[in-house]
C-alpha cells in the first residue's frame, strides 16, 4: 500500500511538473492556426478499461520430483495454457500531444492477470499396468498489478476516426498473488474408472512472486470524436522481461510444494489487453478540430 501511494505521488508530481513546464515556465508555441498545429501541445486525460488474456513463458522448469526411472511421456510436465483465462484492467490515461499526431502517454492502471498450467503424475503396477492411479493438477495463477506504462502514440490519419499505433515500456508493481490448484484423479487401483474430484486449494503467493515486473508494450487502436471527447478501442501486447518467480522461496515448504507437488517455474508474463477508453482534452475546446486556446 505504501509503495502504491509513493508510485501515485511521484507519478502525479511527474505529470503536474511536466504540465507546469509545458504550460507555465516554458514558452507556449505560437498558434499557427493551421490544423497541423491545432492539436499539438494538447493534454488529454481519460479513463480506460477492458479485458486481458495472459500467457506465461517458461524460462526454466522445476519439479519436486527427481525420477529414478524416466516417467511415462506426458507426465511430470507442466503444460501451459496460453491466453485462455480472462483478466481485467482499468485505469487512467494522461497524454500529451507534443507534435501533431505524436503523443506521449502515461497509462496507469490496475490489472489482474490469470494463467494456468496442467500437470499430472502416474503410478502403476508393473505386472499389471491396468492397476494404476493418475493424479491431475490444474494450477491457476492470479496476479494483480498496478501498471505504469509509458508509450508513444502515432496517429495514422486525421478526421473523426483516428487509427494509431503505439509502443513503449511499462513497469508494474505487484499488489496481490494467488494460486488455485484443482486436483483430480483416476484411481483404477481402487476401482474407479472415471475422474474423481479431489481437493481444491487456494494459497497466497505474494512472497513467492517478485514485487515488480517490467517489459515492452506495443499496440494498435483508434479513437472516434464524440463531441468534445474521444472514445476509442485499443489492443496492446505486454511483453514481460522479468522472471516473476521469487527464487528465495521457490522450494519453501507449503501446501503447494509438499502437498500438490507444485514448484513454480522461472517464467515471464505476456498479456494481450483489449481496452476501451474515453478521453477529454484538458484545454478548453473552441472548434470541432480541438484547436486549443
Amino acid at each position, binding site marked *: 500500500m505504501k509503495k502504491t501511494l509513493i508510485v501515485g505521488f511521484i507519478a502525479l508530481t511527474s505529470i503536474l511538473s511536466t504540465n507546469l513546464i509545458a504550460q507555465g515556465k516554458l514558452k507556449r*508555441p505560437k498558434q499557427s492556426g493551421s490544423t497541423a498545429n491545432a492539436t499539438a501541445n494538447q493534454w488529454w486525460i481519460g479513463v480506460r478499461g477492458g479485458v486481458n488474456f495472459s500467457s506465461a513463458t517458461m524460462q526454466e522448469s522445476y519439479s519436486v520430483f527427481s525420477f529414478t526411472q524416466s516417467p511415462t511421456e506426458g507426465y511430470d510436465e507442466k503444460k501451459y495454457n496460453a491466453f485462455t483465462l480472462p483478466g481485467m484492467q482499468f485505469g487512467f490515461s494522461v497524454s*500529451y500531444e507534443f507534435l501533431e499526431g505524436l503523443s*506521449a502517454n502515461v497509462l496507469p492502471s490496475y490489472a489482474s492477470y490469470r494463467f494456468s498450467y496442467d500437470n499430472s503424475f502416474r*503410478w*502403476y503396477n*508393473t505386472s499389471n499396468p491396468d492397476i494404476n492411479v493418475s493424479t491431475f493438477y490444474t494450477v491457476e495463477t492470479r496476479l494483480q498489478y498496478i501498471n505504469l506504462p509509458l508509450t508513444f502514440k502515432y496517429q495514422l490519419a486525421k478526421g473523426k476516426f483516428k487509427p494509431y499505433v503505439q509502443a513503449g515500456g511499462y513497469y508494474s508493481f505487484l499488489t496481490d498473488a494467488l494460486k488455485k490448484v484443482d486436483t483430480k484423479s483416476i484411481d483404477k487401483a481402487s476401482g474407479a474408472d472415471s475422474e474423481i474430484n479431489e481437493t481444491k486449494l487456494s494459497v497466497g503467493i505474494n512472497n513467492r512472486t517478485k514485487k515488480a515486473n*517490467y517489459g515492452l508494450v506495443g499496440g494498435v487502436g483508434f479513437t472516434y470524436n464524440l463531441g468534445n471527447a474521444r472514445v476509442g478501442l485499443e489492443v496492446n501486447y505486454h511483453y514481460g522481461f522479468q522472471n516473476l518467480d521469487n527464487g528465495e522461496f521457490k522450494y*519453501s515448504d507449503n501446501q503447494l510444494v*509438499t502437498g500438490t*507437488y507444485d514448484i513454480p517455474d522461472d517464467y515471464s508474463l505476456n498479456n494481450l489487453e483489449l481496452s476501451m477508453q474515453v478521453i477529454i482534452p484538458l484545454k478548453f475546446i473552441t472548434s470541432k478540430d480541438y484547436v486549443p486556446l
Partner: protein
Amino acid sequence: MRNLRYTFRYSFILFILTILLISCGKEVDFVPDSSFIKIFNDEYFESAYIPMDIVQAGDSGYFILSAYDTWYTYILRVDENGEFMWDYKLEDTYVNPIKGLYYKDNAFYFFCMDDLSLGTYLMKATDQSKAAEVEKVYADIIYPLHSSAVSDGFLLESYNRESYSTRLTKLGADFSSAWHEEYGVEEDIEESIIGHLTRIGDRLPFFTGQAGNKYFLNGYYNYSMSMLFVNVNDGQQTGVINGFRDKSAISSAQYINGNSFALSRFSFDENIIIPRIDINTSSIGISSDIEGNEHPEMTPNATVYTEILNVNGKEIILYATSTKAGQILLYAYDALNGKLIGTHHLGRINPYEAVDFVTTSDGGLLILGNTFVNGRFSRITLIKMSEKELIEFAY
C-alpha cells in the same frame, strides 16, 4: 521545439527515476543448491523405499542409504542440487542396511546383513562402479543393528542370538575388529529383532555413540531396551539407564560436553524431550525417572534423531521427529541452557516422516525423510534448508 524536447526528456527521466527508486527490491532468482525439496520417485506401484541414512560427498552431492520392500538394500546418489545421479538395488542376499554411512577416500561405506547366515557385510560403493560391493565380511557378527563413527574408528552394535546378548564391536579406522563385548539380555528377544529388521514389528531405537571417554549404546539389556555406558578401551560396562521391556526407553541421545547429554525417551506411547541433563555414566538409572517436556504431538514411541549443530556460531541441539499429523518436526534448543529456541514443521497434506539430518558445507541443513506420495507410495525425500532458513528458526 526545444522546449518540447525538454518537456519530453524531463517526463521520461522522472518516470525512469520513479521506477528505479521503487524497484530497489531484494528479490533474487533461484540458487539451485541453497534450498530444495526433492522426492525420489518412480512410477511403480509396488515400490516402497525406507531411507536410513545420508552422508555428504564432499562438494559433489549426497549419498543415501535406504531399505526397499521391507528389508532389501538400496543406495541412491544425488548431486548437490538434490537431483538424481544414479541408484543401485543390491542383490536379495544383502538385507537389513543399518544406520551408519561413511564417506571416505571418495567411497561410501555401510553395513548390511546376509539374509541366510545373518552375518554382517561392510559394503563399499563408488561413483565409478555405481554399485556396491562387499568390502569385508564379519561372519561372527550377526543381526547388525546400528553403527556410528567414533574418534578412532567405528562402533557396531548387533544381537547375538546364541548367547542372548547385545554385542558391541569396536572397529578401527580401517574397519578391522579391535574388540567386542557382550551385554546379557537374559532372554530370547530374536522375535523382536526380526520384527524390527523386517518392519513387521515395532521399530526399536538402537543407537551407539561416544561421550568423552565412554561409549554408549542403546539396545536390549537385562530384559529391556536400555542405554549402556562402557569403557572406550575394552567395552566394559560402567553404567546403565534401564528401560522397561520395549515399552519405555531412551529414544535418542546426543552427548553435549562434560556429563551433559541431550536425550529423548518414550514411555508407553508418551514422548519426552530432555534437551540438557547431567548423567553419571558410572551409575544405574531408570529412563522413566528422567524428567523432561512431554510432546503429545509426536507419534507414539516416536523415532527421534538428535544432533548438536553450530548455527551461526551458536551451539544448538536439534531434534528431528515425526508428528501425528504426518509432518516432520524440528525442535531447536540452546545447548547451553536447554531452552527451546524454535520449532519448524515440514510437509503438508501428504505424510512426511523424519529419518535423519546433516549439516551441509554451505551452512545449511539437509533433512532426510520418508514420504508417501499421493498419500500412499513410500518414497525418499530430501529437504535442504539454506543457512538463512536455518538461522530463522534455530538461532
